[in-house]
């Protein structure tokens, strides 16, 4: 039998029976702060909150519309307050960031093959951008005409 004794001091060889004494690094809570790519990832995740914010604002707007012209006027007034404008501007930036990062990631999730050959990345991303542009254009035309 060669059972290894538990070490009593730090200077004694601290081996367990089969495993040496490993150093196990701890992951800092701020791991995402120190690397550009990690920060970008966290911002991409965070952008979903603003996508949700846009949805909530739209739902509130529909609700105001349903409650009659007075309620709608009140809602529009709220939309003109600095806080609402700030929220909308920040949300808009994040939603654009969300869309762009999402579309750029699409090619790696979809291995599209055409006649046995993989399609180049931009050919997968481009249609997404094209649809985005067309839909945005159509909405802008509807709203601004």
């Amino acid at each position, binding site marked *: 039998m060669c059972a290894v004794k538990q070490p009593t001091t*730090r*200077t*004694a*060889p*601290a*081996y367990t029976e089969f495993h*040496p*004494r*490993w*150093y*196990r*690094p701890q*992951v800092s809570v701020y*791991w*995402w702060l*120190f*690397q550009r*790519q*990690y920060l970008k*990832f966290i911002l991409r*995740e965070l952008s979903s909150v603003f996508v949700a914010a846009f949805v909530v604002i739209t739902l509130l707007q529909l609700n105001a519309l349903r409650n009659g012209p007075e309620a709608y006027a009140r809602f529009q007034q709220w939309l003109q307050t600095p806080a609402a404008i700030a929220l909308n501007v920040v949300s808009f930036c994040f939603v654009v960031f969300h869309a762009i990062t999402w579309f750029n*990631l699409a090619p*790696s*999730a*979809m*291995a599209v093959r055409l006649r*046995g050959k*993989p399609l180049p990345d931009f050919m997968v991303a481009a249609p997404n951008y094209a649809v985005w542009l067309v839909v945005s254009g159509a909405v802008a035309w509807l709203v601004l005409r």
Partner: protein
Amino acid sequence: MADKIILEVARYSPERDAKPSFQSYEVPVYKEWVVLDALNYIKDQVDGSLTYRWSCRMGICGSCGMMVNGEPKLTCATFLSSYAHNGSKVRVEPLRYFPVVRDLVTELSDFLVKLTKVKPWLIRHDEPPLTQGEFLQTPDQLDRYKQFSMCINCTLCYAACPVVGLDPVFVGPAAIALAQRYNMDSRDQGTEERTAVLAHPEGIWGCTFVGECTRVCPKHVDPAGAIQQYKLKAALDWVKSFVMPGEHKSKDVRSEAAND
């Protein structure tokens, strides 16, 4: 280019230290030297106790991976000169998120257990007689999995992945890419067996698509792509199981390939 550079090397002795510390060494810089050459210089000329792994020194064995200035790198494929600006230092640490055995040597058993879990070998349900000859494969069929088969198990992608650090049970990028390598192989019939391990919160659904694994991979394996493609397929399979109950979940890859 400076002709000398300071290497700050992480040192950890399990007998002596509670945690790693850095030791600085001044090493010469030659145009053709990689970081591994500098470590070999230290070991041969300055301090024989420095411990690290390496073997092929040509980007094949996958054993020399370390953090170089915070980035997971194959040290045999990372030129020292690219860090040698006046007064600059190079920090060499063991690969992130792995337990450290000593100095720059990481403990790999956990990775190896995860790797075997995904059954990275050809699985056949029928074994045609040898007289039928070898399994033939068209260049197109080879092309579908070739990229994923280039993995050298260097574990750089694990050191790049924050999910690996935060969620130790996550199977991880290379193992999933290797599973996909066999799933996409026209000779393999084990897709379903692997799905049990992979379509799981500890498998593909653990991945949050940070994408760093693909960026650091020295062999352009694109593990992030492999995982997202797997997610898409698992999601479609799930939808299909509602739309067409009773249909076989994952089609045999062979018949898929044959239909091309």
